[in-house]
């Protein structure tokens, strides 16, 4: 590779001839940048269109803005039963509860699987791995019946309580993988100093697994924020709508003229995901690379 480049540079420098080896990186960059642009163009266009007056959405495929208008945002914010603030808050509550639930319950289970020896461990571990692949549809009907008997429909409980019980098993797996990488000598040293299982977990393992906790936080944030199926089923009262459910009721309620405000609110709903991506991409990429979760 190096000799090849060297040779090309020398030849090119001497004769000024453009060789394939020399322009190849450029061609690759043009192709990559081109496909990246094609992929993101619709999203960029949506952002731009949300800042244009109403019907432009159906006329202007370009992404140049002449005058910036925020009227779509003003209209969209109040277009549904409740102001959009309400839906953002509802989503925030669900997301926050889910994050706390996943962090606490999954790290506990992961510690047990990675560090403690107990009867039936292999069996439970296999069950845990299998449960990652279980489609939610198989349990959703009885879960719905259970939660409706408990009077939990139109509350955030059906969305948060399962997380407190570590039903998002991917994160258990992710954390098990991480804890296995922490040297056992540290546990051993703490044990000799008189630490029990609980304080080894709290004082040694937890502080060292912060990167895994960060990955869990960011994935939980994005998945819960985007989650639609369970929120659609459990939240039917417009006051309790979360952002995705509210957006979708917007689709039902709209005529052509309100596409602008629908775009505006869609953009609002994507901003937190985008920010989480910017802040946490290091953890996200690491997370999917090591566990292969979506």
């Amino acid at each position, binding site marked *: 590779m190096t000799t090849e480049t060297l040779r090309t540079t020398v030849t090119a420098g001497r004769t000024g001839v453009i060789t394939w080896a020399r322009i190849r990186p450029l061609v690759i960059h043009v192709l*990559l940048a081109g496909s*990246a642009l094609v992929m*993101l163009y*619709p999203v960029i266009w949506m952002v731009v269109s949300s800042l244009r007056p109403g019907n432009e*959405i159906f*006329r202007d*495929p370009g992404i140049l803005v002449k005058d910036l208008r925020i009227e779509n945002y003003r209209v969209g914010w109040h277009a549904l039963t409740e102001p959009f603030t309400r839906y953002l808050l509802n989503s925030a509550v669900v997301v926050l509860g889910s994050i706390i639930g996943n962090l*606490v319950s*999954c790290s*506990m*289970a992961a510690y*047990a*699987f990675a560090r*403690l*020896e*107990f*009867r039936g461990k*292999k069996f*439970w571990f*296999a069950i*845990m791995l299998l*449960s*990652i692949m*279980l*489609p939610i*549809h*198989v*349990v*959703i*009907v*009885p*879960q*719905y*019946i*259970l939660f409706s008997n408990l009077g939990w429909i139109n509350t955030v409980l059906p969305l948060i309580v399962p997380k*407190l*019980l*570590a039903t998002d098993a*991917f994160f258990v*797996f992710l954390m098990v*993988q991480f804890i296995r990488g922490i040297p056992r000598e540290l546990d051993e040293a703490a044990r000799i100093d008189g630490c*029990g299982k609980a304080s080894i977990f709290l004082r040694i393992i937890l502080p060292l697994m912060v990167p895994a906790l960060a990955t869990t936080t960011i994935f939980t944030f994005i*998945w819960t924020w*985007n989650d*639609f*199926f369970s929120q*659609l089923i459990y939240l039917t009262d417009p006051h309790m709508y979360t952002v995705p459910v509210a*957006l*979708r009721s917007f*689709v039902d309620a709209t005529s052509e003229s309100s*596409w602008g405000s629908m*775009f505006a609110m*869609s953009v609002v709903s*994507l901003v937190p995901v*985008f920010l989480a*991506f910017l802040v946490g991409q290091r953890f996200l*990429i690491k997370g999917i*690379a090591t566990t*292969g979760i*979506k």
Partner: protein
Amino acid sequence: MSALGELGSLRGKKPVGQKKDNLAGYLFLAPWLLGLFLITIGPMVASLYLSFTDYNLIQAPKWIGLENFSRMLSDERLHNSLRVTFTYVFVSVPLQLTIALLLAVVLDRGVRGMAFYRSVFYLPSLLGSSVAIAILWRQVFGTTGLLNQVLDVIGIHGKGWISDPSTALGTLVVLNVWTFGSPMVIFLAGLRQIPTMYYEAASVDGAGVLRRFVSITLPLLTPIIFFNLVLQIIHAFQSFTQAFVVSGGSGGPSDSTMFFTLYLYDRGFGNFDMGYASAMAWFLLVIIGVFTAANFFASKYWVFYDD
């Protein structure tokens, strides 16, 4: 190691000769175990029972034996939803993985700005499952949507891609392919694991780019390809949000985007036909299980483990 690899290697491991801490183990496992029984296994058993009943949430479930299942045999809409789902899964997943693999290979060859491209290509995977993007898709592929506006510029008069039953499913396939970023990142991590000396040796022997890809990259990457294939197929079978929002909740036009999951939702939560919906859910589980098992079985013939 991936979750799939773990599962395969569970049998082989010997227990470490260590003192047992049963109490501590089960205490730390308690929340998960509680969730397993209350939120997962309990409901699974209940839904298995409900699949043999007629139940509308109000009256007590009535045992009807195999009637739900025989009804599935003659339910034309269900057959259609299976066709739609299979088409979606078996068109979009191979396309998505091929693109993911190609881009991963290109990016792995030391392109400058690799991290930037990786991020840009990965972003749609995070956005793709949102209602907002489904709304965008509804507009982009609509009669006066972005795609047709662009086509207009070059003089082509496009149709309403979403309102036409022959292309509506295609727009959802495009959407799934659009989220190729996460398998791509997994491929990239796999490519990193291939020792460079293999390539160096092949180069010395005079192997070209294509030859090295076919003889080194592909065989050594088969475990990752297999892993992505299993995962994306399972995932695609359960796809719901996009079809639901793009079709306005109807699975239309003419049931052309009526995924199995949409039909299940329609039966269970649209008509409160909970017994039938439970039977459908178990059928879905069996389908996914069969395809996953078939995948594992077939993997013996094409997945290469470099041990």
